[in-house]
């Protein structure tokens, strides 16, 4: 065992299943071009509900990547997570699983709700036909921890496994948890989140959120930081990353895409958006501190961008509070306005976009947002070329969690 080389957490693989692209390269192309894919919800049984617009993952066939038994036994949210894992492993050059040292690879996911569609189907059998008609896989498929378990079983990953249930910001908390796992001795972790909130029961659960946008025009439904901000639009999908010990990655000749440099999380209470200013600023300072990063070193901010005026104001002020004068000069972006917020999956998709933005030297734009009413340099309309070394990713949850993550460019890849 090496005592000379400190263990640092590198991102070596990215797998994306998003409304605007399946695979990291397709996702990045859409993000860079500011493609808006918000659209009318077409999923079965949803057309009578007052939530009309969302980011749907279309043209996705899980069977292309995952064996049928894993599909029959799991919900759509796990299908996304397992498929994103296959793509992340491939991207990292780690093959399809069954590693030579199974205890060296772990799995961490974050989840906002679990398998609502699967759960609804089985509960309908319970009340429609009786308890004897409920399938046994109900016991695991709708559980929010299902994706971690199935990814671990399918890939033979027997290292530390866990699930972070800390609201949408849990997507960033999971990445931080994986980075700590690497520092504590695990070789690599599959980490991320994917959600499937577009099914009748799941949608009804969301209708009570005052922050939800029910605007019916896709290009007007989610416009954070503008005077027309009217809430957020939900999305399905997410991303999985390979977070790996930097030395392990270099020893096997893998490209170090980025480093997980710092993270911090705070809690300020459900729907208390004004107070999220203080919480988010505190999280940013904590993440910078852990990364040993000065505010001026932040080259781009991926904003939470909730789309609720009070929350947008709090976020703009938090960025200024934590970054000082640099906060009004640093490019800020929110690619999620083009595809919606995939709950815990959203900040992981943003982290993937941050890594890709650093690699390509482009700050992607914020789709559908043209005229902002806050003191931010929000990148709009088209991508802005920039030398990017360090990115800050922000996330807040509807239940009051705030988190900030600092990622630094890996320096290996000339993509």
């Amino acid at each position, binding site marked *: 065992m090496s005592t000379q080389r400190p263990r640092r957490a590198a991102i070596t693989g990215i797998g994306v299943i998003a409304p605007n692209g399946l695979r990291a390269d397709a996702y990045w192309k859409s993000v860079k071009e500011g493609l808006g894919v918000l659209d009318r919800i077409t999923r079965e049984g949803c057309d009578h509900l007052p939530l009309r617009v969302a980011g749907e993952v279309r043209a996705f066939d899980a069977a292309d990547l995952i*064996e*049928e*038994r*894993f*599909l*029959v*036994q799991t919900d759509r949210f796990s299908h996304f997570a397992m498929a994103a894992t296959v793509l992340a492993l491939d991207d990292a050059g780690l093959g399809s699983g069954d590693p030579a040292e199974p205890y060296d690879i772990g799995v961490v996911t974050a989840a906002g709700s679990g398998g609502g569609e699967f759960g609804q189907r089985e509960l309908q059998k319970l009340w429609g036909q009786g308890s*004897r*008609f409920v*399938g*046994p*896989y109900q*016991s*695991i498929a709708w559980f929010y921890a299902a994706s971690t378990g199935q990814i671990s079983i399918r890939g033979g990953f027997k290292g530390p496994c866990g699930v972070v249930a800390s609201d949408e910001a849990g997507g960033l908390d999971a990445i931080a948890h994986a980075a700590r796992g690497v520092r504590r001795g695990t070789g690599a972790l599959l980490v991320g989140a994917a959600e499937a909130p577009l099914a009748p029961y799941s949608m009804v659960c969301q209708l009570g959120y005052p922050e939800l946008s029910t605007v019916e025009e896709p290009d007007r439904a989610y416009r954070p930081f503008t005077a027309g901000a009217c809430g957020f639009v939900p999305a399905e999908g997410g991303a999985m990353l390979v977070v790996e010990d930097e030395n392990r990655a270099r020893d096997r000749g893998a490209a170090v895409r980025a480093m997980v440099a710092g993270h911090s999380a705070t809690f300020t209470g459900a729907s208390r958006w004004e107070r999220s200013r203080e919480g988010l600023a505190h999280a940013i300072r904590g993440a910078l501190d852990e990364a040993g990063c000065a505010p001026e070193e932040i080259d781009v901010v991926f904003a939470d961008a909730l789309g609720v005026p009070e929350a947008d104001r709090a976020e703009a002020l938090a960025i200024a509070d934590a970054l000082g004068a640099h906060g009004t000069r640093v490019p800020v972006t929110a690619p999620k306005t083009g595809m919606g917020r995939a709950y815990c999956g959203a900040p992981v998709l943003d982290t993937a976009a941050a890594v890709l933005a650093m690699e390509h030297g482009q700050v992607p734009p914020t789709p559908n947002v043209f005229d902002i009413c806050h003191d931010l340099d929000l990148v709009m309309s088209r991508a802005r070329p920039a030398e990017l070394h360090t990115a800050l990713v922000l996330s807040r949850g509807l239940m009051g969690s705030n988190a900030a993550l600092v990622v630094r460019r890996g320096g290996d890849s000339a993509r």
Partner: protein
Amino acid sequence: MIIEVTVDELAKLMKKAAGVSVDPTDLAHSSDSPFGTLGLDSLGLLGIVGELENRYSKPLPPDAERCKTPREFLDLVNTTLKAGA
């Protein structure tokens, strides 16, 4: 009426209840192999037990879901179904 669950039906049930595709001929040849090696876990077998109980409106003994191999399972199921026919 003589009720008998065949290897063919078991293959169909494995597909329906657990998404496990297995060729009936192969299943007949490996009827002494543990379910685990055929890709069927304990929840999958439990689902098959429930499906058969619903289909024949008859409870199967608790040992049914603990059977280790297709032969053991089919023997138990068919003995139980015949006993009550």
